């Protein structure tokens, strides 16, 4: 297939010729009988894995098998936050590396993922929390990531619309991570998909994996709704369904599936510049380029495979929003949805690009 490079010039040229010249962003190949690598799950991680296998390691005989449509899982349902303000060993390095990848991604992919490094602010509400934020911020700085510790006055200067005067949990300050921000979640899936496709990876949609063929402890391939597909190696990136897919291969995982809700309001003129997280209230918020306030909170708190939440958490999240920034009362929630999260039993999140 013809490989098309995107640019302002192309947009201009196509604009003048009725936008007739654009080509499919990826092919719809028929699955081959065998691949060197089969990746189950065409979400953010599956597509990125395929892309890096092809680009970095020149492994191109790869298929990504997606049960529904590309980017239809959590990568298309999160609240678009990108950040590296983690503290603990393991996640700290992981997210630090991830943010560096984000920073070069649009040029590498020739696809604008709209990374917007508008800063992630975590608020602290007690001396103890400020110490914990300092510990975290220092850890970030120690590995080369950015962090600033703001006191109350400095926080107020930057985000004056927070409730500093009547808050139930007074704002003592915050930890600002300027390189954090948001990215267009769908775009990263599509960008990786296009990048992988251009390098020969077969992206196969509407193809559900129904089982593994295993002989003498070795995986030979996967049974799918479109027949058997042989594989040298099989990668699994099916957040929310990891337990089920792993169980098909006889593995038990230390995971429970939980639903996490997210919300967006009607479009509004810019009013919130940063990503702000309010730990005491389990609430975080940012404003999208289209003007919607995008926000969320904690897990609903029970196992679920239904991609929807319930009112108590929705109400709690809105209450926290009103507690933190009472100016958003007249913003109206347009849509709420739920994503399924793989939660380890320590309840540390397993997903990359959300909070």
């Amino acid at each position: 297939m013809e490989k098309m490079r995107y640019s302002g010039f192309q947009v201009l040229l196509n604009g003048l010729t009725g936008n007739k010249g654009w080509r499919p962003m990826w092919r719809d190949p028929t699955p081959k009988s065998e691949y060197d690598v089969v990746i189950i799950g065409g979400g953010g991680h599956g597509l990125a894995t395929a892309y890096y296998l092809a680009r970095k390691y020149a492994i191109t005989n790869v298929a990504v098998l997606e049960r529904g449509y590309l980017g239809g899982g959590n990568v298309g349902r999160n609240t678009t936050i990108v950040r590296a303000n983690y503290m603990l060993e393991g996640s700290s390095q992981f997210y630090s590396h991830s943010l560096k990848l984000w920073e070069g991604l649009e040029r590498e992919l020739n696809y604008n993922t709209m990374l917007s490094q508008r800063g992630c602010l975590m608020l602290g509400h007690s001396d103890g929390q400020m110490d914990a934020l300092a510990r975290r911020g220092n850890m970030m700085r120690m590995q080369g990531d950015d962090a600033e510790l703001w006191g109350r006055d400095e926080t107020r200067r930057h985000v004056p619309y927070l409730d500093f005067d009547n808050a139930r949990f007074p704002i003592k300050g915050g930890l600002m991570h300027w390189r954090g921000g948001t990215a267009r979640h769908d775009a990263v899936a599509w960008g990786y998909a296009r990048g992988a496709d251009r390098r020969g990876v077969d992206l196969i949609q509407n193809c559900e994996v129904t089982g593994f063929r295993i002989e003498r402890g070795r995986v030979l391939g996967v049974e799918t709704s479109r027949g058997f597909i042989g594989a040298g190696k099989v990668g699994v990136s099916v957040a929310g369904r990891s337990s089920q897919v792993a169980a098909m291969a006889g593995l038990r995982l230390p995971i429970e599936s939980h639903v996490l809700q997210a919300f967006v309001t009607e479009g509004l003129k810019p009013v919130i510049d940063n990503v702000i997280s309010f730990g005491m209230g389990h609430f975080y918020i940012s404003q999208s380029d289209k003007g919607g306030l995008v926000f969320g909170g904690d897990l609903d708190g029970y196992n679920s495979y239904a991609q929807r939440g319930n009112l108590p958490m929705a109400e709690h999240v809105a209450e926290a929003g009103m507690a933190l920034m009472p100016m958003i009362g007249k913003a109206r929630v347009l849509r709420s949805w739920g994503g399924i999260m793989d939660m380890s039993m320590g309840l540390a999140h397993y997903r990359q690009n959300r909070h």
Partner: protein
Amino acid sequence: MRLKCPLCGDRDAREFHYRGAAKLMERPEAGAGEAAFYDYVYLRENPVGANSELWFHELGCRAWLCVSRDVSSHEILSVELADAVKRGQA
């Protein structure tokens, strides 16, 4: 969601605290060793469909409940007092 507490009757789920899989009822014996405890503490069946789980009627009667719930539809299949279930097993 609503749960029918065997003591209090039908109540809004907001009165309850969710704990997780009902396998937590089957705590290994002290001498069972680390592997058994690892399984107990961490590993989960995490089924699609009916799930046995523990809820605590924290803002109600404070009974721990053993609930069978379809985690795809959120339909509550049964609710029993956890201590009764546990004693029934013993």
